[in-house]
């Protein structure tokens, strides 16, 4: 019985963690590359969610097909924002970056409320992704299984990309030391643009995948901002692997908390964050 509960918590927690990772990975990298405090990142994820939901509900697209479009659409939007606006703020005080991105979040939430209303978006998964399958004594939620498998593939691809491609190597170099990297002749500006694009695509994908799990409403951009920031800060800037571990940890702790002490809510997560930050101000895996 207890083993069953533990397995359930780990299974559910990992699924949630994978989702959090997808949403945070982009921010972890851009944070490390350009030290740009992009508080609008969760709003990008929200956009991905709304794109997917609109395609499904208004145009009847099958769920799986909406995922790449959600990712791409988000990336295009975010990329445009980056080229037009964010670029001007890379060497400016982080305070202004915060104000800028908070303004963008405010505008996104208002626009989304205007277009789609403030209610939770109804979403219906295809039958092969709904319900649960019986494995021995356990009921395994199919959608969570899908998240772990599909998300896992993306994660694996990302880690491979960071570790084994030249692009990944350039990114790692630029995170370590931007000036030296650019003096090696690497166009850091273009590197950043590409990384931002990919990171936003991931956020959009994460947002689209999360709708069935956690619902979608205009408050998404702020609710998940806290979690995304926690993952990035705990993981250490620029460290994708750090973000992965932090996200999985957060997911499992969240589900465990809900199961064992449901009335405390997000309190545990926030308390954990404050404690960890106090102990390790630069994150668990900081490249200090």
């Amino acid at each position, binding site marked *: 019985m207890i083993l069953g509960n533990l397995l*359930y918590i780990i299974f*559910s927690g990992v699924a949630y963690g994978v989702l959090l990772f997808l949403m945070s990975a982009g921010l972890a990298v851009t944070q490390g590359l350009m030290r740009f405090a992009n508080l609008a990142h969760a709003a990008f994820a929200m956009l991905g969610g709304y794109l997917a939901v609109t395609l499904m509900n208004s145009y009847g697209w099958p769920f799986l097909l909406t995922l790449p479009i959600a990712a791409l659409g988000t990336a295009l939007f975010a990329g445009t924002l980056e080229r037009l606006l964010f670029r001007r703020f890379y060497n400016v005080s982080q305070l202004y970056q915060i104000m800028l991105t908070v303004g963008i979040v405010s505008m996104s939430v208002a626009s989304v409320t205007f277009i789609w209303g403030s209610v*939770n978006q109804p979403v219906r998964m295809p039958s092969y992704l709904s319900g*649960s399958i019986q494995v021995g004594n356990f009921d395994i939620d199919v959608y969570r299984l899908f998240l772990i498998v599909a998300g896992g593939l993306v994660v694996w691809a990302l880690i491979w990309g960071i570790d084994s491609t030249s692009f990944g190597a350039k990114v790692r170099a630029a995170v370590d030391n931007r000036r030296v990297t650019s003096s090696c002749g690497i166009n850091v500006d273009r590197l950043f643009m590409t990384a931002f694009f990919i990171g936003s695509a991931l956020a959009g994908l994460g947002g689209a995948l999360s709708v069935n799990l956690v619902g979608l409403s205009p408050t998404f951009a702020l609710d998940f901002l806290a979690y995304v920031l926690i993952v990035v800060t705990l993981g250490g800037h620029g460290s994708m692997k750090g973000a992965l571990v932090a996200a999985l940890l957060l997911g499992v702790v969240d589900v465990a908390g809900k*199961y064992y002490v*449901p009335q405390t809510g997000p309190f545990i997560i926030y308390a954990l964050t404050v404690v960890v930050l106090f102990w390790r101000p630069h994150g668990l895996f900081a490249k200090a």
Partner: protein
Amino acid sequence: MKRSRLAIAVAVAILLLGSGAVQGQQTPIKIGIVYSFSGAGGTAGKEFNDIVALFQKQHGDTIAGRKVQIIERDDGGIAPDNAKRLAQELIVEQHVDLLAGLIFTPNAMAVGTVSTQAKMPTFIVNATTSGIMAKNPYMSRYSMTATQVTIPLAKYAYKSGMRNMYVIFMDYGPGIDSGTTFENTFKGEGGTIAGEIRVPVTAEDFSAYLQRVKDAKPDGVYIFLNASGSGTTFLKQAKTAGLDKAGIKIFCSGDLLTEQVLPAIGDAAIGVISTMNYSGTHNSKMNRDFVKAFEAQSGGMPPTFGGVGVYDAFQAMYKVIAAQNGQVDPDKTMALVKQLKFESPRGPIAIDPDTRDIVQNVYIRRTELKNGQLVNTEIDTYPMFKDPTEHP
């Protein structure tokens, strides 16, 4: 020539004086509204405006020769300092005759102090906390209290065979009221509580809680969640978690299954037993006409218990204004309010003269599919039920 100019001047003077005199008679009766048009989530604001528009279409906008002017102010959600200031400004600046509105308890409490200080009759259309009436002698309520609708459901659950139940409620005022009431009533009937979970208000993912419920293997589970937020996804998640397969019956508060959200919940709602003071399919001529007229007004959206609360508050206000021939006096108004008894789309309602709170039928409903549409069918009624915990 002089004479005709004089004649014109006199004519104009008479006209001006005359119109001035007529104007004097026509100062409007002002009703101030403090409501959460925004920040309440969902469509509360739109429903309010549609109800008012419908009501005035049916009952006109003049009483005893005076126009009824409705002045709306948005308190923006749970913001007692805003609500209080808006109520104060409505009284002091706009000189309203009556106040109405209020969804959230903190706002209602704050406005309550204003209502009592200024002796302003206040008609509550939604806020459901039991304690508010006793402290504020100029307030009356037209919605319900959480206790009032929960006690019958607990009794019904026991009556229908439940002996061991799990209770899940959201950790905020109405949730705690409702959850603890259910537990106490159910235990009073002879049942046992298998467990209790207080869900944080921001919860979106209920799978962990559902897992706990399944592990405890109760006969049934009672749920109270914030319907305008994530509560609507709960039933779907319950279905995914296989609660029905495990033989656990679901009982909930009716605001989880309002006519507006039922289509989004879909099949997961079928078979759920709920309690509410109003159901869209209530079988009375008044309700059938009401629903049809409202759907025409709102562009297809059905009315919910929230809208009915507004409608009846307006019925009450119009009645007391008419009974005083348009000259609204606070104490006379409250004396009239205490005698109110009339027909609402939900059924018969009355105001309790001791507590100034609403007395109404509480309906137990089961959600089913009828003619391809999901409806809440009334299966039992607890007539003219009073909240027993309230004291004058």
